[in-house]
């Protein structure tokens, strides 16, 4: 017991992986602390899945060090498999089996763990116990995947994009289940490209882009690093571009940028910045076509760091 307590659940140093000429992971470092939910946040193709699959022992790195629960892949595989819970990005379970049959199958692989019935009620699929997997909704399938990850009472849980493609209600339901699991004090590594998901579930977040960690901290710290609590976005009618430096010098504005005709201002004091912006636009006789403000999010952190959005849609 002391053996596991003194080890970090996961430590990754200088991880590298390339597929031919494409570098997927480029010197990535991570540390997950006991009992923490750690999020890898980044756009598609950032190297999140490659990273998590190397940590899961399903992929081999080209370089770097991975220590999971104080053990290493290639030496302690059998033991690690017993102690890890894994939900892959897109597993299609056999459609002809029922929920109970699927969970029972996965439970039979592990020495210790709750009964299949207990796991099914943990993910709130009791009413679907006898239903074929083929008849489940997307959210129910993801909960089944979570159940199969939990059958061995894992010490570390890997969730690769657990809510991708789900409707908002199913997503919220899954979040509640993951929060419930977090309460048991066991560590989770989660990948996502939804900033709300990372903000809500994760104790700490690493923002990943092009196979590297470009920012690391609690969601609150990362947002605070913008030194601006609000974001003000606007679009103007057919005019020549407005100088970004002029916008950045407005009262209450920290920085300004422009992309595809939409201007983004990071704002510390909204009540001063809005009148200043409107005054400036009136002075330049520029017509405003759109104006939005919102509290700064992890998405804004990502945009500030990379100039791109997490999801380009």
């Amino acid at each position, binding site marked *: 017991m002391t053996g596991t307590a003194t080890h970090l659940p996961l430590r990754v140093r200088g991880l590298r992986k390339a597929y031919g000429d494409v570098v997927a992971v480029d010197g990535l470092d991570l540390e997950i602390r006991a009992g923490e939910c750690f999020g890898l946040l980044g756009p598609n193709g950032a190297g999140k899945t490659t990273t998590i699959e190397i940590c899961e022992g399903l992929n081999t790195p080209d370089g770097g060090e991975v220590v999971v629960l104080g053990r290493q892949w290639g030496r302690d595989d059998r033991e690690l498999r017993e102690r890890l819970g894994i939900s892959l990005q897109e*597993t*299609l379970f*056999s459609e002809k089996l029922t929920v109970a*049959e699927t969970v029972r*199958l996965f439970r039979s692989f*592990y020495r210790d763990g709750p009964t299949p019935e207990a796991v099914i009620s943990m993910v709130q699929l009791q009413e679907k116990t006898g239903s074929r997997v083929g008849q489940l909704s997307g959210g129910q399938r993801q909960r089944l995947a979570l159940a*199969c990850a939990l059958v*061995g009472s894992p010490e570390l849980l890997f969730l690769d994009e657990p809510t991708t493609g789900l409707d908002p209600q199913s997503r919220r339901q899954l979040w509640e289940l993951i929060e419930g699991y977090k309460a048991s004090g066991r560590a989770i590594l989660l990948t996502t490209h939804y900033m709300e998901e990372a903000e809500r579930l994760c104790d700490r977040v690493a923002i990943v882009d092009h196979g590297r960690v470009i920012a690391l901290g609690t969601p609150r710290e990362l947002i605070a690093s913008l030194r601006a609590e609000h974001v003000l976005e606007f679009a103007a009618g057919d005019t020549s571009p407005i100088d970004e430096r002029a916008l950045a010098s407005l009262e209450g504005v920290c920085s300004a940028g422009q992309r595809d005709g939409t201007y983004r201002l990071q704002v510390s004091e909204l009540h001063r910045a809005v009148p200043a912006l409107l005054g400036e636009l009136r002075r330049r006789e520029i017509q405003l076509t759109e104006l939005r403000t919102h509290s700064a999010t992890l998405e804004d952190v990502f945009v500030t760091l990379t100039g791109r959005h997490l999801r380009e849609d």
Partner: protein
Amino acid sequence: MRTERRRWRSHSLVQLTLVRYREFIREPEAVFWVFVFPILLTAGLGIAFRNQAPERTAVAVVESGQAGARLAKALRANPDLTVQSLGDSAAMEALRTGRVALVAMAAGERGVEYRFDVERPESRAARLLVNDAVQRGSGRRDPVGVSERQVSEPGSRYVDFVVPGLLGMNIMGSGIWGLGFAIVDARRKKLLKRLIATPMSRTQYLASFLLSRITMLVVEVALLLGFAVLVFGVPLRGSLGMLAVICLLSALAFSAVGLLLASRAQTVEGVSGLMNLIMLPMWIFSGVFFSASRFPDSIQPFIQALPLTAVIDALRASMLEGASAARLLPELGVIALWLVGSFVLAVRMFRWR
């Protein structure tokens, strides 16, 4: 007692094997092709080629003039012939389209002309029958007295020949399809990857396929042979033990071939193509529906090396001739080589992702 039972039920090999049964039984099409189709095929072939009173041979006669009428009368006297009286061109048309086997017409004062295709066996038979009728009608007397006794011996009929062929074909199909399709489907769905992320024993995963294959084989063989024996009286002259050994070894060999074909394929379409590529030559050359010895000598070594040829030869020798284990050794050897070779190669090539 109860906990013992629970432990047994929760064993992963048991669970994996149960999954195989469930997936199979819940796929009605698979059940049809594996269990029902071979029986329908046996029934169809057995009925189509049943030994019955020899069919009467249809011939045409061009009934022109006195000689023509005499000829027609002589032919109608033979009970084995059905005689149609047609005009010259209509008769040739009937011959070309296969409605009659031969056209007979008067030629000159006393002569008769036969028109027929020597390539067609029934035409050659018709020529003998017609000629016999013509000569007898003109007063020929046979110098030798002949007596006839007709026999129908189980074992020499077409249905006896074809049942071992169908059994071998069925064992091949369900072995190759059963493993190939299920494994590639699981790989495509990333289920294989998900399974190796658990502590599951990979050996047990593959063993579950063999276990379920063997139990389903018992049902398959019992249904098909039971039907053939009860309905058509197909003989089982060899020992049932020997038959079981042949079936088991064949099922394992074809499962190994299925595993080999599935070892790398990423899509179901890909593996289906591979499976057909491998099975097609065996459907043609291995003597399912007619003897493999009809093919030229030059390709016999290739045919004899095919696993299905060995399986069907062994099944026929055991069922129809009651061959001993010693006599079946060459066939069993070929099957065992395919089993070991495919399995070793499959395990080396197999990809879980």
